[in-house]
């Protein structure tokens, strides 16, 4: 089993694009956020419309004339506007935010066409119009869970897919100590940095990026273990005295990342 459900899409330019499908979790999360936003929007509209209607009727009652049909008109417009807000919310955002609604943006997912291109008004409208069937009749969940490409009815009709945004590596700035910087310049001469593979470097970088959120003891153990293993890999006899294992890892990160010092 793989963690992500990946699909490969043939594009008109006959290039295959790889995407990870959004999955039920991200889509449910996005829906949860969107329905809260939509609920808030509708609540504001309801309050506004009701107070507007009351004031309008008060005003009309002061005039002489038969306005008995007005409440029906007000109700009719109110119902239409509710529909327009519900549908419009999804259509507007999915078209102008390149397949994302606020919920989808927070969940880092996006609607695309089956050939990988961004969706247009027609697709967004079909998805939004079939949304009540998928969401309120609870059909969407079953379709997403059971179909190979996780399509709800709206996706099947509109020919769309919901995919995860390819998350670039978080460019969190790594704070590196001065000692590590000094050591990094010497490491290239002292050791066999070429023995490190990109995978090893990725692990060191991931540790340095994530160490601040780790618990103290496991972090210490992990740091020591990584440092010991790396020391063997790059054939260094002893870690220079006075350095912590974290500083040693920082130095390796710097030295490996900066090829000019390697050649």
């Amino acid at each position, binding site marked *: 089993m*793989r963690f992500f459900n990946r699909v490969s899409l043939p594009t008109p330019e006959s290039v295959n694009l790889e995407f990870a499908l959004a*999955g*039920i979790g991200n889509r449910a999360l996005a829906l949860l956020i969107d329905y809260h936003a939509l609920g808030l929007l509708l609540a504001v509209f309801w309050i506004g419309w009701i107070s507007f209607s009351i004031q309008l009727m008060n005003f009309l009652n002061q005039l002489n004339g038969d306005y008995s049909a007005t409440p029906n008109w007000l109700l009719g417009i109110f119902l239409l506007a509710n529909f327009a807000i519900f549908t419009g919310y999804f259509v507007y955002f999915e078209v102008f935010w390149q397949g994302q609604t606020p919920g989808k943006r927070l969940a880092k997912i996006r609607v695309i066409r089956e050939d990988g291109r961004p969706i247009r008004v027609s697709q967004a409208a079909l998805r939004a119009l079939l949304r009540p069937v998928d969401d309120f009749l*609870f059909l969407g969940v079953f379709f997403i*869970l059971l179909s190979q490409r996780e399509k709800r009815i709206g996706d099947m009709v509109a020919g769309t897919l919901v995919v995860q945004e390819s998350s670039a590596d978080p460019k969190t700035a790594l704070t590196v100590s001065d000692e590590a910087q000094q050591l990094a310049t010497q490491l290239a001469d002292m050791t066999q940095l070429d023995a490190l*593979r990109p995978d*090893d470097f990725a692990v060191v970088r991931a540790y340095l990026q994530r160490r601040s959120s780790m618990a103290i003891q496991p972090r210490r153990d992990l740091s020591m273990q990584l440092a010991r293993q790396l020391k063997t890999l790059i054939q260094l006899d002893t870690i220079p005295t006075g350095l912590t294992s974290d500083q040693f890892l920082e130095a390796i990160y710097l030295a490996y990342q900066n090829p000019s010092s390697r050649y």
Partner: protein
Amino acid sequence: MTFDSNPSDLTQPLSVGNVVNGGFRLYRSNLKPYLKVSAIGTLWALIPVLVIIPVVLFYVTTQRYYNLLGLIVPAWLLLVAYCSAQYMANSAAIARLAFGELINQPETIKAAYRYTSARKWSFLGMGALLSLLYFGVALGMYLIAAILIVIMFASIGGAEFLRSPASAAVINPGLAIFAGLVILAIILMFIVVFTWFSVRFCVAELPLSVEREATATKTIGRSWELTQKSVWRIFIILLVTFLVTLPIQFLVQVVATMAQGAIAAFYPQESSIFLALTYAFTYLLGLATGIIVMPLWQTIKAVIYYDLRSRREGLGLQLRDPEPLT
């Protein structure tokens, strides 16, 4: 579970949605074995119910031999304890299987069950401890609520207000609103505090299922420590999972209502047969739902636990095995 070769998949913590996805995908790719373990566990939980029915019928029909109860009741309680332990060992086996796949060390059902079954009394102990903890929390909350209510009553005029609440509320509606707000705040406090504790204890069975040195008390401590900085995130994960299972509950409700209608077509609604049949059917349907939904929560908890350990302890941040230097 084989992760994609892309190392960023391996070294990045999982997002809320992807934790839920992971649980669903684990369940889906192991549907049959997980359902089997879940069914066995649920049947264990059914045994005490099946045993008590003939006993009750016996006493209802004979109306005698009451002194035997002194023997039957403790024996039945022992049975309940044993069956609960078995149920927990089975559900923990699913969590262990799921975690094994997450760290690329899959196991057979037998091996996983052997491990958790050997610790079934620890699981029971953990369950008892958790119940005690929740009881303590509830007690504390009731005390706080009682104090707050007393203060509120005193501040709005005490017994005077109670004696003629209508008139007092009319004279000063602000007081009635104030009282309502205090009660709302108390209810909110109950919900928030219980949710918070539930999140802190939510992965309690995992360490006991996979960590060799875990005991009934240590495993609760581990859950407490791992969830420390992630309460809000885990809450959203559990909420989203619950939302996705709602349609299943909805489907069950539809089936139950339809069945009730079908039974009503054959037996009058007031008859005891109708009641017995409806109860029996609803109970069985509940069991079936439990069998289907339980593995999902176990896999979700396994992914939460895996992700927490990856965040807090760098689980999975391993260099390749150092090559032997020749």
